[in-house]
């Protein structure tokens, strides 16, 4: 996995330089991507670095908004970190690029309530169809 080349590709996609940060803890690279450039970044990686493996999409609450992590594998681990805010929070869907994202985005939508624009089938994946209540990962702690 050529970190410099990837930085260049992502910098082009985001129209601004990006920095790949190796984690202090393990041999994975993380990079922050603005949500508007997500699709361009994915396309760039697929075109120039033969990306096809999306491991999963993780969402977590960060202050008032969310961080959505796209974990990729390009011979080494690379994660695109996207900040998502707004009410309701939403991101463009990457299903048309990476078909496996269909289920990962459904799961994030289920558990966090984040919408994915352009997703073909945003029905609940893990929760029952008649689930009533806040997304489980956002619900308040019960004492």
């Amino acid at each position, binding site marked *: 996995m050529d970190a410099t080349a990837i930085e260049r590709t992502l910098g082009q996609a985001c129209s601004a330089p990006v920095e790949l940060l190796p984690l202090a803890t*393990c041999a994975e690279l993380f990079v922050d991507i603005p949500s508007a450039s997500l699709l361009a970044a994915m396309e760039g990686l697929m075109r120039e670095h033969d990306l096809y493996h999306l*491991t999963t999409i993780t969402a977590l609450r960060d202050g008032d908004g969310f961080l959505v992590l796209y*974990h990729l594998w390009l011979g080494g681990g690379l994660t695109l970190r996207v900040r998502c805010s707004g009410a309701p929070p939403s991101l463009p869907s990457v299903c048309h690029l990476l078909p496996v994202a269909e289920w990962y985005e459904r799961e994030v939508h289920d558990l966090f309530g984040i919408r994915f624009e352009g997703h073909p089938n945003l029905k609940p994946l*893990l*929760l*029952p169809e008649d689930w009533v209540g806040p997304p489980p990962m956002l619900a308040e702690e019960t004492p």
Partner: protein
Amino acid sequence: MTEMTIPIGPQHPLLKEPLSIELDVSGERVVGGRVNIGYVHRGIERLCQQRTYAQNTALVERICGICSHAHTTAYCQAVESLMGLAIPERAAYIRVLMCELERIHSHLLWLGVLAEAIGFTTIFMYAWRDREMILDMMEELSGGRIAHAANIVGGVRVDISPEQVELLLQRLRAFDEQMAFFRELIDRDRSFHRRTLGIGRVSLDMVHAYSMVGPPARASGCDVDLRRDAPYAAYSSLAFDVITADGGDVWSRAQVRLQETIQSVRLCQQVLQELPEGDLATRAPRRVAPGEAVARVESPRGELFYYVRSDGSDRPARVKMRTPTLPMLLALQYTLPGLETADVAAVIAGADLCIACADR
């Protein structure tokens, strides 16, 4: 042509766990399918946030019965990365031993399930009988057949005495001979071939499109195995072959899994013969500095992914696990159309699904 929708699940004799597959069939051909999961969703990710790092080891072990050790290995690795802990070499070797024993028993379980699905009950009985040899070994080592609780954050809890090493080596030799029978079977038995050869072909393009992992991906020619490509635990010191095949059908998957079992026996023997002396675990702190870590482990079904994020307290802020069955299920949904109805059982059983893993 009679058009009907056959519900496979959530309760069905073919399935070991609740899963819903709705098959639209026209005559004897499948024209559409929908896979629904979520029947065993227990909210593990949220539960992890409410428990300490040490308690979570026990929790993630119970996500699944057949890959429980892989889950704890991945989780412990991620947390150890967060803490900056290096585990002792002896612990790394013992982790590999349990991982490989688990791989063997999982593959034999799968062979039995596939045989049952195609009506070959005899093979089901033989495979599970031989699987007992492995389960007995794991019970002797750790006290549990399925839930071993071998891993702790910082190392392992289980030790192996020199007498046990000898005993295990003997047992592995006996087991290896039994495996020769299954090898013959997959290679030669015509009845088995008729139900698995050429059935449910998955191309390499599909593997890439659905990010499939594990033996099904390798059976379609995708040469990725995390034990070799991103070694963890003690794998960088051990010699083994990565098995791939080209057919992409159920038979190729059987080949790959069976050969992997033989490689696993080899790995176990190496571990037992080269087991270094040393401590079993490094002491782990209770609180963890803020940070995030990723661990990828080659479980019996493929790449198991863990992401752990800490916020400085003694409980993780986020634990995310991606199990290998998830992409397999999605790929299954798109593989089903075009199959003959009678082959659906072989394809579903041949996919080695672990729904409890997928649902978490």
